[in-house]
């Protein structure tokens, strides 16, 4: 019975003779069964009775006292608990809550023993137990109390693999294993741990866990779920862990980096923590409502992350179980309610506040390119101002036609053109065009269109006009159809190439507009058509154009026209013809003082000075250069422009957090409704916690005050929550199992003294994360063997007493990274935009909104396929199955603890996913090349690579038998063998026999699916 009772508190079977404690034994029962009506929430309190404090429980009302210490017969609460009358018994039947016999017995004994109350443990300051202690002394002490003992240390092969996954998310190499096995000196284990702590992979593994808490992703998360630029934040977290940034600073930078004196760029990037929340830009949505929701979400996430409290329910009413009133919730919320980001994210990837984060070289390059461009333009304008020009339209006698060649666009879009695209996978400019520096790249597995309208230099169709454009189709994902449409006065004219792609806007193009097949992918090719092909007349003006593609990737470059032009009507030779044809409002390329006169068109009463100004503008930037000097300078300017744009687009940025200049007033929102403000509140912290110290006592409290409060020595939870999350990371379960809830609905710590000892040490030691990790990893507790007897398994199924070492399934990212790593396919490049790795068809497509730029998944190729999982693209509304199948959260909200499920879909993925199977083939090649000559040697090599240990004789026999079975088949059926090794995009080695590699591929697939492989043992 006793064992059962205590088991309720933390899922561990405890010895029967421990003294009763309110927090450990009583509070969980009362919290679960009584506090909803007799707890902290005054509004829903029944009979004006509260049982969460001694004052409430001992209070006499009308001569009745709920609990009388040591006197069961006079304790009304007890009499009600044991009542049989339906109207009397507590909890009442309508609550659907009942006390078990064991719970009743515990309460009975507690009252008999004097009904002593304690403040909820997590709200008391952590106190370090006096005397000399270690993790192991706490663990061993508790085990001794239970009549148990620690397990012996695991063997070295198990240990190095355990440490390697725990600290780097990757398995050890054979060489690392050999080094460790060969190190016979004292401290070999510690040296091995230190090597892993020093690896850049350490920061990556730590970051993986933090990103779940920070709800990091690469898309906005709501409605369109478009892409956002946020990865600089992710990369900063990696740096912070690798540089061992103390956790107090890690905290202040993320919550209030912008409020630090002269914040560094990293301090600003870090504020992205509270920009990682989901946002919307849904048509019809009300911005104020979402501004409110974002602030609520940020408050709840911050409270959960640093206080270990679930604050969500206090949005609508006082917390029923924990001392957090609605007013206190909104006081915390007011720290975040003045955020400067808009309610509607605009569906763009740069939603303000946004910080450009150029590398130093990029910033210098941009500044230099901008200066050059400005200089080139200045010279061009000066040259043009001193150039004499006679308008051919005003010539006495008609001028002869000239042969002309005009570039419509090349390295930049045409001057004044308004560029739009179909907001799917956005257009980008890449280096290495056909003609010179850059080319436009369109990428979309469905359809993409770039539309240029309102060109400031409209093109006049010459006689015998021949148009040409250069294109390159991607070798992997060639577009299936291309079209180029010209906007003219008199309608749209189009030419297209390729095949009909049903269901796209190019699906119903008339056959007569088709100009031919598509060129061969992978090389630049010229597409040409004549004015006649399109039914264009000489003298028509082209004011814009559309580039369209369906079904893949294409680069466009150097669009030009040649023909015989009449100088008197050609917009590029006749100033008056141009002015007349191009006149438009708001031509921002023009100096401000010339815009009005330009818009009005060529009128007789135009001010001569202004006309002269327009003249100069025309000669400099629009007209076909009238002399060699101008031609040379124009060319220099065009190049400078392209260089500047290239330098500019190379720079990425990231979302940062900042407040509005004028803070918003905050109110309690009645029942959590955004448009029902109640009492006004000021930024403040809950009463149960130590007081907030403000930097400026008379001013409004700031987020920096809040951050400093979390890390102050008096704060009871920040350090505890943090050490607990790390404990969970390394031991599988936190000392407090509910690592996101330290409140009274959460579980009690299994080892409260240890938790406090770790927390105080962590804080006093300067919040040194690597030191804390090292302390845990080098403990004997961590180093224990994970072998478990049937008895021990039954006694402590979750290993909460730590009588054995931790053993649990690898996380989603680790599983994928493991396969890539042992196969040698892995690409360890760090940072940058999320890679689009292998993904089955129809993960994004069936859910994405038509206009979303993350509707169509366009996979990367080459080394990007083998990036570490941390650096893969995360779309919130349709996460990649390699993540979601293995319990990764969808990052729509903060997640402090992943589950570890064990499902058939996981088995299918590990066996059949191309990523895993290709890795098996690449691994098989390594086995054949480096694993020795006999199959037994090769099996041993494979085992050591994957499991760090050699196989047993029996294991070799089992594996060898399957190898021979597969080899026999593939020797007979080489076509099948070739298929096996052909899975995936990396090229199989041609110098190895296909049947042999295929058979080893199946062996590798087997070994990569072993329980031992997918587990941190």
């Amino acid at each position: 019975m006793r064992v059962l009772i205590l088991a309720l508190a933390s899922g561990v079977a405890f010895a029967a003779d421990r003294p009763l404690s309110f927090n450990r034994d009583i509070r969980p029962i009362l919290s679960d069964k009584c506090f909803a009506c007799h707890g902290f929430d005054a509004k829903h309190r029944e009979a004006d009775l509260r049982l969460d404090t001694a004052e409430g429980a001992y209070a006499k009302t009308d001569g009745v006292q709920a609990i009388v210490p040591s006197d069961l017969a006079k304790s009304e609460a007890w009499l009600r608990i044991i009542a049989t009358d339906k109207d009397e018994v507590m909890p009442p039947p309508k609550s659907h809550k009942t006390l078990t016999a064991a719970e009743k017995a515990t309460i009975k004994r507690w009252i008999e023993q004097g009904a002593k109350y304690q403040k909820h443990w997590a709200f008391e300051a952590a106190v370090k137990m006096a005397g000399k202690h270690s993790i192991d002394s706490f663990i061993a002490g508790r085990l001794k109390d239970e009549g148990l003992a620690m397990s012996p240390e695991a063997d070295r092969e198990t240990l190095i693999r355990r440490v390697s996954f725990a600290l780097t998310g990757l398995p050890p190499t054979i060489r690392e294993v050999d080094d460790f096995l060969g190190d016979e000196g004292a401290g070999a284990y510690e040296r091995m741990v230190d090597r892993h702590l020093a690896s850049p992979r350490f920061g990556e593994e730590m970051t993986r866990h933090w990103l779940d808490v920070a709800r990091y992703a690469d898309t906005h998360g709501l409605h369109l779920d478009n892409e956002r630029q946020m990865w600089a934040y992710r990369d900063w977290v990696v740096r912070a862990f690798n540089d061992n940034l103390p956790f107090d600073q890690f905290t202040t930078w993320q919550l209030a980096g912008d409020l630090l004196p002269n914040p560094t760029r990293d301090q600003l990037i870090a504020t992205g923590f509270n920009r990682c929340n989901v946002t919307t830009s849904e048509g019809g949505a009300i911005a104020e409502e979402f501004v409110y929701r974002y602030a609520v979400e940020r408050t709840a996430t911050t409270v959960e992350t640093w206080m270990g409290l679930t604050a969500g329910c206090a949005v609508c009413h006082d917390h029923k179980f924990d001392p957090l009133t609605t007013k206190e919730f909104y006081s915390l919320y007011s720290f975040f309610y003045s955020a400067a980001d808009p309610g509607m994210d605009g569906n763009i990837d740069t939603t303000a506040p946004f910080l450009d984060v150029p590398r130093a070289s990029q910033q210098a390059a941009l500044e230099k390119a901008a200066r050059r461009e400005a200089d080139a333009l200045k010279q061009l304008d000066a040259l043009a101002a001193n150039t004499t020009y006679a308008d051919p339209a005003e010539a006495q006698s008609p001028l002869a036609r000239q042969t002309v060649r005009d570039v419509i666009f090349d390295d930049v879009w045409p001057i004044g053109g308004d560029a739009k695209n179909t907001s799917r996978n956005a257009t980008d400019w890449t280096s290495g065009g056909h003609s010179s520096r850059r080319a436009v790249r369109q990428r979309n597995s469905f359809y993409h269109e770039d539309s240029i309208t309102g060109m400031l230099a409209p093109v006049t169709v010459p006689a015998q006009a021949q148009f040409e454009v250069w294109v390159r189709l991607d070798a992997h994902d060639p577009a299936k159809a291309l079209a180029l449409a010209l906007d003219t006065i008199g309608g749209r004219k189009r030419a297209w190439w390729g095949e009909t792609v049903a269901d796209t806007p190019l699906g119903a193009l008339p056959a007569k507009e088709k100009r031919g097949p598509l060129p061969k992918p992978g090389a630049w090719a010229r597409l040409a058509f004549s004015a006649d092909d399109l039914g264009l007349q000489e003298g028509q003006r082209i004011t814009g154009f559309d580039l369209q593609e369906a079904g893949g990737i294409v680069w466009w470059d150097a669009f030009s026209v040649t023909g015989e032009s009449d100088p008197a009507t050609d917009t590029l030779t006749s100033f008056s013809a141009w002015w007349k044809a191009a006149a438009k409002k708001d031509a921002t390329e023009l100096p401000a003082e010339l815009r009005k006169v330009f818009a009005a068109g060529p009128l007789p009463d135009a001010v001569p000075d202004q006309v002269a100004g327009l003249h100069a503008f025309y000669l400099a930037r629009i007209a076909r250069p009238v002399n060699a000097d101008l031609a040379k300078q124009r060319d220099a300017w065009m190049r400078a422009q392209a260089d500047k744009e290239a330098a500019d687009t190379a720079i990425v940025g990231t979302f940062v957090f900042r407040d509005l200049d004028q803070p918003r007033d905050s109110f309690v929102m009645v029942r959590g409704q955004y448009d029902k403000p109640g009492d006004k509140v000021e930024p403040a912290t809950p009463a149960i916690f130590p007081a907030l110290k403000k930097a400026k006592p008379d001013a409004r409290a700031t987020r920096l005050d809040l951050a400093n409060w979390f890390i102050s020595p008096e704060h009871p939870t920040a350090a505890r929550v943090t050490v607990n999350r790390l404990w969970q990371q390394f031991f599988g379960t936190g000392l407090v199992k509910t690592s996101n809830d330290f409140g009274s609905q959460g579980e009690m710590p299994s080892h409260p003294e240890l938790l406090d000892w770790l927390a105080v040490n962590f804080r006093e030691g300067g919040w040194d994360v690597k030191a804390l990790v090292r302390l845990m990893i080098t403990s004997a507790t961590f180093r224990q063997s994970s072998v478990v007897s049937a008895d021990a398994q039954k006694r402590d199924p979750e290993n909460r007493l730590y009588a054995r070492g931790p053993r649990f399934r690898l996380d989603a990212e680790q599983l994928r990274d493991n396969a890539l790593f042992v196969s040698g396919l892995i690409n360890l490049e760090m940072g940058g935009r999320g890679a689009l790795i292998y993904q089955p068809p129809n993960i994004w497509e069936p859910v994405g909104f038509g206009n979303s730029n993350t509707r169509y998944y366009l996979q990367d190729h080459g080394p990007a396929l083998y990036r570490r999982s941390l650096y893969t693209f995360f779309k919130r509304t349709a996460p990649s199955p390699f993540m979601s199948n293995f319990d990764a959260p969808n990052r729509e909200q903060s997640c402090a603890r992943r589950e570890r499920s064990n499902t058939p879909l996981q088995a299918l993925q590990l066996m059949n996913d191309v990523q895993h199977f290709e890795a098996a083939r690449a691994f098989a090649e390594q086995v054949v090349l480096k694993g020795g000559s006999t199959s037994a040697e090769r099996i041993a090599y494979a085992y050591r690579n994957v499991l760090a240990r050699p196989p047993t004789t029996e294991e070799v026999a089992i594996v060898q038998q399957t190898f021979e079975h597969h080899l026999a088949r593939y020797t007979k059926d080489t076509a099948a063998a070739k298929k096996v090794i052909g899975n995936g995009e990396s090229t199989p080695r041609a110098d190895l026999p296909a049947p042999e590699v295929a058979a080893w591929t199946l062996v590798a697939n087997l070994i990569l699916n072993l329980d031992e492989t997918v587990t941190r043992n």
Partner: protein
Amino acid sequence: MDPIFDHQLIQTRRQFFGSSGLRLGGIALAAMLGERAHAAPSRVHPALSGLPHFAPKAKSIIYLHMNGGPSQIDTWDYKPVLQEYFDKDLPPTVQGGQRLSTMTSGQARFPVAPSMFKFEQCGQSGRWANTELMPFTSQIVDDIALIKSVHTNAINHDPACTFVMTGREVPGYASIGSWLAYGLGSENNDLPAFVVMTPQFPQGSNGQALFSRMWGSGFLPTRFTGVTLRNAGDPVLYLRNPDGINTQQRRTMLDALNQLNRRKFTQLGDPEIQTRISQYEMAFRMQRSVPELTDLASEPQSVLDLYGPEAKTTGTFANSALLARRLVERGVRVVQLLHRGWDQHSSLPKQLGNQLKDTDQGVAALIRDLKQRGLLDSTLVVWGGEFGRTVYTQGVLTKDNYGRDHHPRNFCMWMAGGGIKAGVSLGETDDFSYNIVKDPVHLNDLNATILHCMGIDHARLSTKFQGLDARLTGVEKQHVIKELLA
């Protein structure tokens, strides 16, 4: 040999190939285990203890979600009086200062757009329906219970879709399908408990986004997430062996894997190893059971005809509807079809026509097919979107062209089958289909009713989340709609 292990390990190779055919379903499994005196038939998807709370009327549910907000005015909520109000302003007393979406809140006028379609009374029940666009569904009105007074909290798609499926507007909560899988488990050991399909929808329609949270497990264990039966690639993710591997080789691999894992279990004692072995075996069984499920060769022509010309075309609504029947026939607990494109802000008559042309026959066929097999009594079918549409037009208004904005204050849904009183109509709206005047049904009540039909007391199906007993139906007490129950 470890007896526990022996008990859990479902099949050895000899048993697998030795059984008749390769279809080792739940029954064969039970029989096999039954041969051993100590073994009780174990379910791959067990129910929570204590569930169902009472005898369920429906064993399975097929939830047909028409995503985008189908117009109640142009389908089921017949308002003849509106013809007199064509292009007249919606009376302010009707509008009542209610919240509008910002897509129309700036409109100078709110001109009434009567439905341009022909409505007729159908069936024994005399239910009014748009027979022009719903020639098939209008014939099964006596099998359904229509609710004209459903209302929801949210006015925009994302929060409304999240609400209709999880009972909350913000992400993070469990979907109705995962609640049911969590509570009730499933009777089929070779297929997932909760299957989701997202059929194609008409080209050119306003296809709003879906969100995986609509079938996500939220705070429940991730294994209760809906498994997508897919239109492209493998019908279940990673189902097919890679090129160049045949079933026999996969079996060889699994035999070795089992042997090696067993050895490890003997050494380490971790029961997770046993679970893993049985999950690999279930994966192998799914490699048979799923293709068998999607292969329609055994369906008679008469059944295919019922679903229409697209019945055999993968990914169509008709095909998905037929698969839904095959799934519940096999004991799958929850089937969810999410059909997109019902968001008609403009060109409603034409686009709604396209949507119904895509789905009308399949929906009616599903009801008839379930009925003719005697499955309708044990299958609950639910049809509806995330909200309704406004009586006033958004944008242009002519007799045969108009658009409608979002309207959360009342919309139509229907239910049929297990536990539902066929042929009834519940709830009334005012002459403008703008306000509920009788018997309002909040989505939480509707969800409580769905759970009730499945044998669940909604107030007692809860789990701890963020310090609360989280329920599908929210914090407040909800009401099972008795009028809908058989």
